[in-house]
């Protein structure tokens, strides 16, 4: 359980990171918070010959507000996001999800960019960013580009990030008037990988829901946008009948899998239960 030997670089600029990435290619890996990367290195699932530690890049860290959106630097740690009043006000879904990310000692180190780059199918942040319509800012040799979160996650641990690129920030549209968010997940132990989780954002008027973006995680290789549930709940009042209809729609949205934690059948059951909880939470305000 020790990582194989590697060399270590601690660049002082994004340009320097990009230079090292283009020089070393697949042999290099970026170390941000290290809370997912280091376990994979300890288990030798990953054996880079060069670790590029970006923790010296202060410009990649911090939360700022630009008009209609929030910008979170890729190196911003979970603990800072969890305690940010700006995030709580303008992107409450993120604040709701934070306590479910592992444990305090992990949140003191783990970063937003690292979570997104790892793209663990059971991770909370990818699903939240998809629900909120966030964009990922990626910087490469030819400059920065932005990708919608829903296009960024391609498959199991697979993203749109090129081998010679780095995530520099994410941008989240600020919550609009009349919108609410809800978050819930089911795990064996608090902070463990979810067996099923859901992040949601919707317009709520009294008990009537519209523009629902419900995103499940830990049920597929990537976050899964529940489009059928969104259609089923369009301009619907949250009540016993609409909840059952939404739960039926979950079957169209998800094809869950078996693993050591739970069966596909149980996952589907959990997804339906979470759908009910999420809709009730949205309606309750």
């Amino acid at each position, binding site marked *: *359980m*020790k*990582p*194989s*030997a*590697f*060399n*270590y670089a601690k660049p002082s600029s994004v340009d320097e990171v990009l230079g090292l990435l283009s020089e070393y290619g697949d042999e290099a890996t970026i*170390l941000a918070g*290290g*809370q997912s990367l*280091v*376990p994979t*290195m*300890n*288990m030798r699932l990953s054996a880079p*010959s060069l*670790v590029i*530690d970006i*923790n010296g890049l202060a410009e990649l860290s911090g939360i700022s507000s630009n008009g209609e959106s929030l910008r979170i630097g890729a190196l911003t740690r979970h*603990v800072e996001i969890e305690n940010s009043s700006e995030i709580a006000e303008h992107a409450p879904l993120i604040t709701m999800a934070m*306590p479910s990310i*592992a*444990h*305090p*000692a*992990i949140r*003191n*180190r783990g970063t937003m960019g690292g979570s997104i780059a790892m793209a663990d199918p059971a991770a909370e942040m990818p699903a939240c960013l998809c629900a909120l319509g966030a964009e990922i800012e990626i910087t490469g040799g030819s400059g920065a580009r932005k990708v919608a979160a829903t296009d960024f996650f391609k498959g199991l641990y697979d993203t749109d990030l090129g081998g010679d690129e780095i995530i520099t920030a994410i941008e989240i549209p600020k919550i609009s008037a009349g919108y609410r968010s809800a978050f819930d997940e089911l795990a064996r*132990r*608090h*902070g463990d990988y979810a067996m099923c989780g859901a992040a949601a954002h919707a317009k709520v008027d009294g008990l009537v829901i519209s523009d629902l973006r419900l995103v499940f995680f830990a049920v597929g290789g990537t976050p899964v946008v529940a489009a059928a549930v969104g259609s089923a709940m369009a301009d619907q009042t949250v009540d016993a009948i609409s909840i059952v209809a939404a739960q039926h729609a979950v079957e169209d949205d998800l094809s869950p899998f078996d693993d050591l934690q739970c069966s596909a059948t149980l996952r589907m059951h959990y997804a339906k239960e979470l759908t009910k909880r999420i809709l009730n939470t949205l309606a309750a305000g």
Partner: protein
Amino acid sequence: MTTVIEQIQISATVNGEKVTRLIEPRLSLVDFLRNELELTGTHVGCEHGVCGACTVRVNGEIVRGCLMLAVQAGGTEIMTIEGESDGGEIADLQKAFHERNAAQCGFCTPGLIMTTTELLKTNPDPNRAEIREYLSGNYCRCTGYEAIVDAIETVATERKGG
């Protein structure tokens, strides 16, 4: 082609003392503390961030010693269970763990005490559910946690004068 691994010199302040060592980049912070500095109070458990036995404080915040490279700790202030114990600020926690038999085999205890110190700093008056949630990242395979939660509850009550 064999890659030449360059050793790196780091300096850090550990339990108030400045230390300097030449290390391999792959050395974890917990192995650095145990093997280079012989501070064996911090334990090595799962080595992938799950069990919490290696919890130490870096620049005031608890971290997993197995998920941080020693080279990343250059220039930081590190506090281990030895430092906290010698400083006396956890004497009441140690006493309560002892009296309530919350240590049993003792393997998880240093990590639990480090985590508890952080809990009581951020939330001086936690209820039992909050204690359990905060400690959810620290495994104990002996006590069933009940005695640990009791001990922490006792200290929280005592510290607020009751």
